[in-house]
Protein backbone atom coordinates (compact mmCIF):
# COMPACT_ATOMS: atom_id res chain seq x y z
CA UNK A 1 0.00 0.00 0.00
CA UNK A 2 1.31 3.45 -0.88
CA UNK A 3 1.40 5.43 2.35
CA UNK A 4 3.79 8.12 1.19
CA UNK A 5 1.70 11.23 0.91
CA UNK A 6 4.55 13.26 2.33
CA UNK A 7 7.11 15.13 0.29
CA UNK A 8 4.69 17.70 -1.04
CA UNK A 9 3.86 20.52 1.31
CA UNK A 10 0.57 21.11 3.07
CA UNK A 11 -2.01 23.29 1.34
CA UNK A 12 -2.05 26.91 2.46
CA UNK A 13 -5.14 27.44 4.60
CA UNK A 14 -4.21 31.02 5.44
CA UNK A 15 -3.01 30.32 8.95
CA UNK A 16 -1.83 33.60 10.54
CA UNK A 17 1.95 33.69 10.91
CA UNK A 18 1.86 34.08 14.69
CA UNK A 19 -0.14 30.86 15.18
CA UNK A 20 2.70 28.39 15.49
CA UNK A 21 1.32 25.81 17.87
CA UNK A 22 -1.95 24.66 19.38
CA UNK A 23 -1.11 26.73 22.45
CA UNK A 24 -1.25 29.91 20.39
CA UNK A 25 -4.94 29.76 19.52
CA UNK A 26 -6.81 32.42 21.48
CA UNK A 27 -9.86 31.56 23.56
CA UNK A 28 -9.25 27.86 22.97
CA UNK A 29 -8.01 25.20 25.35
CA UNK A 30 -6.86 22.15 23.42
CA UNK A 31 -7.37 18.96 25.39
CA UNK A 32 -3.71 18.03 25.52
CA UNK A 33 -2.23 15.26 27.64
CA UNK A 34 -1.42 17.86 30.29
CA UNK A 35 -5.03 19.06 30.40
CA UNK A 36 -6.24 15.49 30.39
CA UNK A 37 -4.16 14.65 33.45
CA UNK A 38 -5.28 17.82 35.21
CA UNK A 39 -8.95 17.23 34.51
CA UNK A 40 -9.16 13.46 34.85
CA UNK A 41 -11.44 13.27 37.89
CA UNK A 42 -13.53 16.29 36.89
CA UNK A 43 -14.19 14.74 33.50
CA UNK A 44 -14.89 11.31 34.96
CA UNK A 45 -17.29 12.86 37.48
CA UNK A 46 -19.20 14.52 34.63
CA UNK A 47 -19.07 11.32 32.57
CA UNK A 48 -20.65 9.39 35.42
CA UNK A 49 -23.83 11.39 34.78
CA UNK A 50 -24.42 9.20 31.74
CA UNK A 51 -26.10 6.74 34.13
CA UNK A 52 -29.58 7.48 35.40
CA UNK A 53 -28.80 6.17 38.89
CA UNK A 54 -25.92 8.62 39.16
CA UNK A 55 -28.03 11.49 37.85
CA UNK A 56 -30.55 10.65 40.54
CA UNK A 57 -27.87 10.74 43.24
CA UNK A 58 -26.53 14.01 41.85
CA UNK A 59 -30.07 15.44 41.92
CA UNK A 60 -30.44 14.48 45.58
CA UNK A 61 -27.29 16.24 46.70
CA UNK A 62 -24.96 17.69 44.11
CA UNK A 63 -22.10 18.48 46.48
CA UNK A 64 -22.21 15.11 48.20
CA UNK A 65 -22.20 13.41 44.81
CA UNK A 66 -19.11 15.28 43.63
CA UNK A 67 -17.36 14.17 46.81
CA UNK A 68 -17.34 10.64 45.44
CA UNK A 69 -14.60 11.92 43.12
CA UNK A 70 -11.27 13.37 44.27
CA UNK A 71 -11.83 16.76 42.64
CA UNK A 72 -9.76 19.75 43.65
CA UNK A 73 -11.80 22.33 45.59
CA UNK A 74 -11.61 24.67 42.60
CA UNK A 75 -12.90 21.94 40.27
CA UNK A 76 -15.74 21.11 42.66
CA UNK A 77 -16.86 24.73 43.01
CA UNK A 78 -16.62 25.30 39.27
CA UNK A 79 -18.74 22.24 38.62
CA UNK A 80 -21.38 23.15 41.19
CA UNK A 81 -21.45 26.73 39.85
CA UNK A 82 -21.64 25.54 36.23
CA UNK A 83 -18.65 27.77 35.47
CA UNK A 84 -17.67 26.16 32.19
CA UNK A 85 -14.70 28.39 31.43
CA UNK A 86 -13.27 27.66 34.87
CA UNK A 87 -13.83 23.94 34.33
CA UNK A 88 -12.06 24.12 30.96
CA UNK A 89 -9.10 25.86 32.57
CA UNK A 90 -9.00 23.16 35.25
CA UNK A 91 -8.73 20.36 32.73
CA UNK A 92 -12.34 19.88 31.70
CA UNK A 93 -13.07 18.71 28.18
CA UNK A 94 -16.20 20.05 26.57
CA UNK A 95 -17.61 16.62 25.69
CA UNK A 96 -17.32 15.49 29.31
CA UNK A 97 -18.68 18.80 30.58
CA UNK A 98 -21.45 18.36 28.04
CA UNK A 99 -22.82 15.46 30.13
CA UNK A 100 -23.36 17.98 32.93
CA UNK A 101 -24.96 20.31 30.42
CA UNK A 102 -27.23 17.51 29.24
CA UNK A 103 -28.19 16.77 32.84
CA UNK A 104 -29.16 20.44 33.18
CA UNK A 105 -31.14 20.28 29.95
CA UNK A 106 -28.79 22.80 28.35
CA UNK A 107 -28.05 22.73 24.63
CA UNK A 108 -24.54 23.36 23.36
CA UNK A 109 -25.78 26.70 22.10
CA UNK A 110 -26.80 27.61 25.63
CA UNK A 111 -23.42 26.47 26.93
CA UNK A 112 -21.76 28.60 24.26
CA UNK A 113 -23.68 31.61 25.49
CA UNK A 114 -22.31 30.98 28.98
CA UNK A 115 -18.72 30.49 27.83
CA UNK A 116 -18.63 33.47 25.49
CA UNK A 117 -20.72 35.83 27.61
CA UNK A 118 -22.93 36.51 24.59
CA UNK A 119 -26.66 36.46 25.41
CA UNK A 120 -28.50 33.49 23.93
CA UNK A 121 -30.72 35.38 21.50
CA UNK A 122 -27.84 37.48 20.26
CA UNK A 123 -25.70 34.37 19.77
CA UNK A 124 -28.49 32.75 17.79
CA UNK A 125 -28.54 35.79 15.50
CA UNK A 126 -24.77 35.72 15.14
CA UNK A 127 -24.86 32.04 14.18
CA UNK A 128 -27.67 32.66 11.67
CA UNK A 129 -25.54 35.42 10.15
CA UNK A 130 -22.66 32.98 9.59
CA UNK A 131 -21.10 32.52 13.01
CA UNK A 132 -18.16 34.15 14.69
CA UNK A 133 -14.87 34.79 12.93
CA UNK A 134 -11.93 32.52 13.73
CA UNK A 135 -9.65 35.54 13.85
CA UNK A 136 -11.83 37.48 16.30
CA UNK A 137 -9.30 37.22 19.11
CA UNK A 138 -6.06 37.21 17.17
CA UNK A 139 -5.12 40.74 18.08
CA UNK A 140 -5.48 40.25 21.82
CA UNK A 141 -2.43 40.82 23.90
CA UNK A 142 -0.43 37.73 24.73
CA UNK A 143 -1.30 36.20 28.08
CA UNK A 144 -5.01 36.54 27.47
CA UNK A 145 -4.97 33.62 25.08
CA UNK A 146 -6.39 30.89 27.22
CA UNK A 147 -9.66 29.97 28.79
Amino acid at each position, binding site marked *: *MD*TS*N*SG*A*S*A*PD*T*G*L*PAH*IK*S*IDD*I*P*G*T*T*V*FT*PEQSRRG*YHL*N*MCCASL*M*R*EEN*REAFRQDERAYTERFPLTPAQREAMLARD*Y*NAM*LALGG*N*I*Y*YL*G*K*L*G*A*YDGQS*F*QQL*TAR*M*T*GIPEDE*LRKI*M*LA*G*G*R*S*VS*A*FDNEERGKNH*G
Partner: protein
Amino acid sequence: MARIVAGVTTSHIGAVGAAIDRGLSEDDYWSPVFKGYEFSQRWIAEEKPDVVILVYNDHAAAFTLDLIPTFAIGCGEQFHPADEGRGARKVPVVKGHPELAWHIAESAILDEFDMTIVNKMDVDHGLTVPLSLMFGQADAWPCKVIPLAVNVVQYPPPTGNRCYNLGKAIRKAVETFPQDLKVMVWGTGGMSHQLQGRRAGVINSEFDTLFLDLISRDPEAAARIPHLDYIYQAGSEGIELIMWLIMRGALRREAKEIHRFYHVPASNTAVGHLIFENPR
Protein backbone atom coordinates in the same frame (compact mmCIF):
# COMPACT_ATOMS: atom_id res chain seq x y z
CA MET B 1 -16.62 -10.09 -3.86
CA ALA B 2 -17.65 -7.16 -1.72
CA ARG B 3 -17.24 -3.76 -3.31
CA ILE B 4 -17.32 -0.17 -2.16
CA VAL B 5 -19.90 1.58 -4.30
CA ALA B 6 -20.13 4.98 -2.71
CA GLY B 7 -18.95 7.33 0.00
CA VAL B 8 -20.87 9.84 2.07
CA THR B 9 -19.62 12.60 4.30
CA THR B 10 -21.85 14.43 6.70
CA SER B 11 -21.84 16.43 9.89
CA HIS B 12 -23.27 14.49 12.84
CA ILE B 13 -24.54 17.31 15.02
CA GLY B 14 -26.33 16.25 18.19
CA ALA B 15 -28.90 19.07 17.94
CA VAL B 16 -29.88 17.79 14.49
CA GLY B 17 -30.71 14.43 16.04
CA ALA B 18 -32.76 16.17 18.72
CA ALA B 19 -34.61 18.16 16.04
CA ILE B 20 -35.49 14.96 14.16
CA ASP B 21 -36.53 13.16 17.33
CA ARG B 22 -38.80 16.07 18.34
CA GLY B 23 -40.36 16.37 14.90
CA LEU B 24 -38.96 19.86 14.29
CA SER B 25 -37.44 19.10 10.91
CA GLU B 26 -39.95 21.26 9.04
CA ASP B 27 -39.70 24.43 11.10
CA ASP B 28 -38.06 27.58 9.74
CA TYR B 29 -34.78 27.00 11.51
CA TRP B 30 -34.32 23.33 10.68
CA SER B 31 -35.94 22.83 7.29
CA PRO B 32 -32.98 24.35 5.37
CA VAL B 33 -30.75 21.75 7.02
CA PHE B 34 -32.93 18.79 6.09
CA LYS B 35 -33.47 20.10 2.54
CA GLY B 36 -29.84 19.21 1.91
CA TYR B 37 -30.56 15.56 2.58
CA GLU B 38 -33.70 15.13 0.44
CA PHE B 39 -31.67 14.09 -2.59
CA SER B 40 -29.57 11.82 -0.39
CA GLN B 41 -32.53 9.98 1.09
CA ARG B 42 -33.93 9.29 -2.37
CA TRP B 43 -30.50 8.28 -3.64
CA ILE B 44 -29.79 5.83 -0.84
CA ALA B 45 -33.28 4.32 -1.09
CA GLU B 46 -32.29 3.35 -4.62
CA GLU B 47 -28.71 2.40 -3.86
CA LYS B 48 -29.67 0.08 -1.00
CA PRO B 49 -26.27 -0.62 0.54
CA ASP B 50 -25.86 -3.92 2.35
CA VAL B 51 -23.32 -2.53 4.79
CA VAL B 52 -22.22 0.94 5.81
CA ILE B 53 -18.79 1.35 7.37
CA LEU B 54 -19.58 4.35 9.50
CA VAL B 55 -16.56 6.41 10.55
CA TYR B 56 -17.38 8.65 13.49
CA ASN B 57 -16.03 9.69 16.81
CA ASP B 58 -17.32 8.75 20.18
CA HIS B 59 -17.92 11.89 22.25
CA ALA B 60 -16.82 10.56 25.64
CA ALA B 61 -19.75 8.13 25.75
CA ALA B 62 -18.55 4.58 25.03
CA PHE B 63 -14.93 5.52 25.71
CA THR B 64 -13.91 7.71 28.60
CA LEU B 65 -10.47 8.73 29.81
CA ASP B 66 -10.07 5.24 31.25
CA LEU B 67 -9.36 3.96 27.76
CA ILE B 68 -8.98 5.90 24.53
CA PRO B 69 -8.49 3.89 21.34
CA THR B 70 -7.18 5.76 18.31
CA PHE B 71 -9.08 3.51 15.89
CA ALA B 72 -11.76 1.16 17.26
CA ILE B 73 -13.69 -1.13 14.94
CA GLY B 74 -17.01 -2.55 16.11
CA CYS B 75 -17.04 -6.29 15.41
CA GLY B 76 -20.09 -7.13 17.54
CA GLU B 77 -23.55 -8.29 16.49
CA GLN B 78 -25.26 -5.10 17.60
CA PHE B 79 -24.73 -1.73 19.19
CA HIS B 80 -27.22 0.17 21.33
CA PRO B 81 -27.70 3.94 21.23
CA ALA B 82 -25.78 5.50 24.12
CA ASP B 83 -27.20 7.46 27.04
CA GLU B 84 -25.27 10.72 26.69
CA GLY B 85 -26.66 12.36 29.80
CA ARG B 86 -30.39 12.54 29.25
CA GLY B 87 -31.35 9.08 28.14
CA ALA B 88 -30.59 7.32 24.87
CA ARG B 89 -32.02 8.47 21.53
CA LYS B 90 -35.07 6.41 20.68
CA VAL B 91 -33.70 5.12 17.42
CA PRO B 92 -33.30 1.53 16.28
CA VAL B 93 -30.56 -0.72 17.55
CA VAL B 94 -27.63 -0.77 15.14
CA LYS B 95 -26.97 -4.20 13.66
CA GLY B 96 -23.35 -4.94 12.88
CA HIS B 97 -21.72 -7.13 10.27
CA PRO B 98 -19.28 -9.14 12.40
CA GLU B 99 -17.84 -11.17 9.53
CA LEU B 100 -16.87 -8.19 7.42
CA ALA B 101 -15.81 -6.17 10.46
CA TRP B 102 -13.45 -8.88 11.68
CA HIS B 103 -12.13 -9.30 8.16
CA ILE B 104 -11.34 -5.58 7.99
CA ALA B 105 -9.75 -5.67 11.44
CA GLU B 106 -7.57 -8.63 10.50
CA SER B 107 -6.57 -7.20 7.16
CA ALA B 108 -5.81 -3.75 8.58
CA ILE B 109 -3.75 -5.11 11.48
CA LEU B 110 -1.67 -7.22 9.08
CA ASP B 111 -1.27 -4.03 7.02
CA GLU B 112 0.18 -2.43 10.17
CA PHE B 113 -2.78 -0.41 11.37
CA ASP B 114 -3.01 -0.85 15.13
CA MET B 115 -6.75 -1.36 15.41
CA THR B 116 -8.65 -1.85 18.62
CA ILE B 117 -11.23 -4.59 18.16
CA VAL B 118 -14.47 -3.89 20.04
CA ASN B 119 -17.27 -6.36 20.56
CA LYS B 120 -19.32 -4.41 23.05
CA MET B 121 -20.03 -0.71 22.97
CA ASP B 122 -22.85 1.77 22.79
CA VAL B 123 -22.90 4.21 19.90
CA ASP B 124 -23.55 7.90 20.42
CA HIS B 125 -25.00 10.69 18.25
CA GLY B 126 -21.85 10.69 16.12
CA LEU B 127 -23.08 7.42 14.63
CA THR B 128 -26.86 7.62 14.98
CA VAL B 129 -27.40 11.15 13.61
CA PRO B 130 -25.90 10.33 10.20
CA LEU B 131 -28.17 7.28 10.04
CA SER B 132 -31.18 9.49 10.81
CA LEU B 133 -30.11 12.06 8.21
CA MET B 134 -29.69 9.49 5.46
CA PHE B 135 -32.51 7.09 6.30
CA GLY B 136 -34.97 9.33 8.15
CA GLN B 137 -37.08 7.99 10.99
CA ALA B 138 -37.18 4.22 10.75
CA ASP B 139 -38.35 1.25 12.77
CA ALA B 140 -35.15 -0.54 11.84
CA TRP B 141 -32.08 0.65 9.97
CA PRO B 142 -32.22 -0.75 6.44
CA CYS B 143 -28.62 -2.02 6.39
CA LYS B 144 -25.86 -3.39 8.54
CA VAL B 145 -23.46 -0.90 10.06
CA ILE B 146 -19.81 -1.34 11.04
CA PRO B 147 -18.90 1.39 13.52
CA LEU B 148 -15.36 2.74 13.18
CA ALA B 149 -14.64 5.11 16.05
CA VAL B 150 -11.74 7.53 15.73
CA ASN B 151 -10.30 9.46 18.64
CA VAL B 152 -10.64 13.18 18.05
CA VAL B 153 -11.49 14.18 21.64
CA GLN B 154 -8.13 13.60 23.30
CA TYR B 155 -5.24 15.41 21.63
CA PRO B 156 -3.51 14.07 19.59
CA PRO B 157 -5.89 12.48 17.11
CA PRO B 158 -4.36 10.48 14.27
CA THR B 159 -2.87 12.53 11.45
CA GLY B 160 -4.87 13.24 8.33
CA ASN B 161 -2.38 11.18 6.39
CA ARG B 162 -2.90 8.22 8.70
CA CYS B 163 -6.66 8.49 8.27
CA TYR B 164 -6.37 8.64 4.50
CA ASN B 165 -4.17 5.55 4.50
CA LEU B 166 -6.51 3.69 6.83
CA GLY B 167 -9.17 4.34 4.23
CA LYS B 168 -6.98 2.69 1.62
CA ALA B 169 -6.46 -0.29 3.92
CA ILE B 170 -10.22 -0.58 4.37
CA ARG B 171 -10.69 -0.52 0.61
CA LYS B 172 -8.22 -3.37 0.21
CA ALA B 173 -9.92 -5.33 2.96
CA VAL B 174 -13.42 -4.91 1.53
CA GLU B 175 -12.24 -5.87 -1.94
CA THR B 176 -10.85 -9.14 -0.62
CA PHE B 177 -14.00 -10.12 1.29
CA PRO B 178 -15.52 -13.09 -0.50
CA GLN B 179 -19.22 -12.25 -0.04
CA ASP B 180 -21.07 -10.26 -2.67
CA LEU B 181 -21.88 -7.10 -0.72
CA LYS B 182 -22.60 -3.50 -1.64
CA VAL B 183 -20.61 -1.46 0.84
CA MET B 184 -20.60 2.26 1.54
CA VAL B 185 -18.12 4.17 3.65
CA TRP B 186 -19.32 7.24 5.49
CA GLY B 187 -17.04 9.83 7.05
CA THR B 188 -18.80 12.01 9.59
CA GLY B 189 -18.22 15.04 11.82
CA GLY B 190 -17.43 18.67 11.15
CA MET B 191 -17.58 21.00 9.51
CA SER B 192 -16.24 24.11 11.27
CA HIS B 193 -17.38 24.41 14.85
CA GLN B 194 -15.99 25.14 18.26
CA LEU B 195 -17.99 24.16 21.31
CA GLN B 196 -15.62 25.35 24.01
CA GLY B 197 -14.20 28.47 25.57
CA ARG B 198 -14.35 32.14 24.67
CA ARG B 199 -13.90 31.36 20.99
CA ALA B 200 -16.93 29.02 20.92
CA GLY B 201 -19.26 29.67 17.99
CA VAL B 202 -16.68 30.18 15.28
CA ILE B 203 -17.58 29.16 11.75
CA ASN B 204 -15.24 29.35 8.77
CA SER B 205 -17.04 28.93 5.46
CA GLU B 206 -13.91 29.78 3.53
CA PHE B 207 -11.96 26.92 5.08
CA ASP B 208 -14.95 24.60 4.82
CA THR B 209 -15.25 25.31 1.10
CA LEU B 210 -11.54 24.74 0.60
CA PHE B 211 -11.84 21.45 2.44
CA LEU B 212 -14.88 20.33 0.45
CA ASP B 213 -12.97 21.06 -2.76
CA LEU B 214 -9.79 19.32 -1.64
CA ILE B 215 -11.48 16.21 -0.29
CA SER B 216 -13.27 15.92 -3.59
CA ARG B 217 -10.54 16.75 -6.07
CA ASP B 218 -7.17 16.59 -4.30
CA PRO B 219 -7.48 14.28 -1.31
CA GLU B 220 -3.71 13.86 -1.01
CA ALA B 221 -3.46 17.59 -0.35
CA ALA B 222 -6.32 17.40 2.14
CA ALA B 223 -4.44 14.59 3.88
CA ARG B 224 -1.48 16.91 4.42
CA ILE B 225 -3.41 19.53 6.41
CA PRO B 226 -1.86 19.66 9.89
CA HIS B 227 -3.89 19.42 13.10
CA LEU B 228 -3.03 23.03 13.88
CA ASP B 229 -4.78 24.29 10.76
CA TYR B 230 -7.95 22.35 11.53
CA ILE B 231 -8.08 23.56 15.11
CA TYR B 232 -7.47 27.18 14.20
CA GLN B 233 -9.43 27.32 10.96
CA ALA B 234 -12.29 24.93 11.66
CA GLY B 235 -12.46 25.42 15.42
CA SER B 236 -11.33 23.02 18.09
CA GLU B 237 -14.09 20.53 17.30
CA GLY B 238 -13.67 20.98 13.55
CA ILE B 239 -10.73 18.58 13.85
CA GLU B 240 -13.43 15.93 13.33
CA LEU B 241 -12.96 16.56 9.59
CA ILE B 242 -9.97 14.21 9.56
CA MET B 243 -12.53 11.41 9.61
CA TRP B 244 -13.72 12.35 6.14
CA LEU B 245 -10.28 11.33 4.89
CA ILE B 246 -10.89 7.72 5.91
CA MET B 247 -13.96 7.69 3.67
CA ARG B 248 -12.01 9.32 0.88
CA GLY B 249 -9.12 6.89 1.09
CA ALA B 250 -11.58 4.01 0.90
CA LEU B 251 -13.05 5.39 -2.34
CA ARG B 252 -11.19 5.33 -5.59
CA ARG B 253 -9.13 8.37 -6.53
CA GLU B 254 -11.44 9.04 -9.47
CA ALA B 255 -14.68 8.72 -7.47
CA LYS B 256 -17.17 11.34 -8.59
CA GLU B 257 -18.84 13.89 -6.34
CA ILE B 258 -22.54 13.64 -7.15
CA HIS B 259 -24.02 15.74 -4.36
CA ARG B 260 -22.82 18.66 -2.26
CA PHE B 261 -24.60 20.54 0.48
CA TYR B 262 -23.30 23.23 2.77
CA HIS B 263 -25.31 25.22 5.27
CA VAL B 264 -24.69 27.48 8.27
CA PRO B 265 -25.80 27.03 10.99
CA ALA B 266 -27.17 24.00 12.76
CA SER B 267 -26.83 24.93 16.40
CA ASN B 268 -23.18 26.06 16.56
CA THR B 269 -21.97 24.12 13.60
CA ALA B 270 -21.53 24.38 9.86
CA VAL B 271 -23.26 21.50 8.07
CA GLY B 272 -21.37 19.86 5.22
CA HIS B 273 -22.46 16.86 3.20
CA LEU B 274 -21.02 15.14 0.14
CA ILE B 275 -21.82 12.00 -1.81
CA PHE B 276 -19.27 10.25 -3.97
CA GLU B 277 -19.80 7.38 -6.34
CA ASN B 278 -17.07 5.01 -7.37
CA PRO B 279 -16.85 4.29 -11.09
CA ARG B 280 -18.92 1.18 -11.87
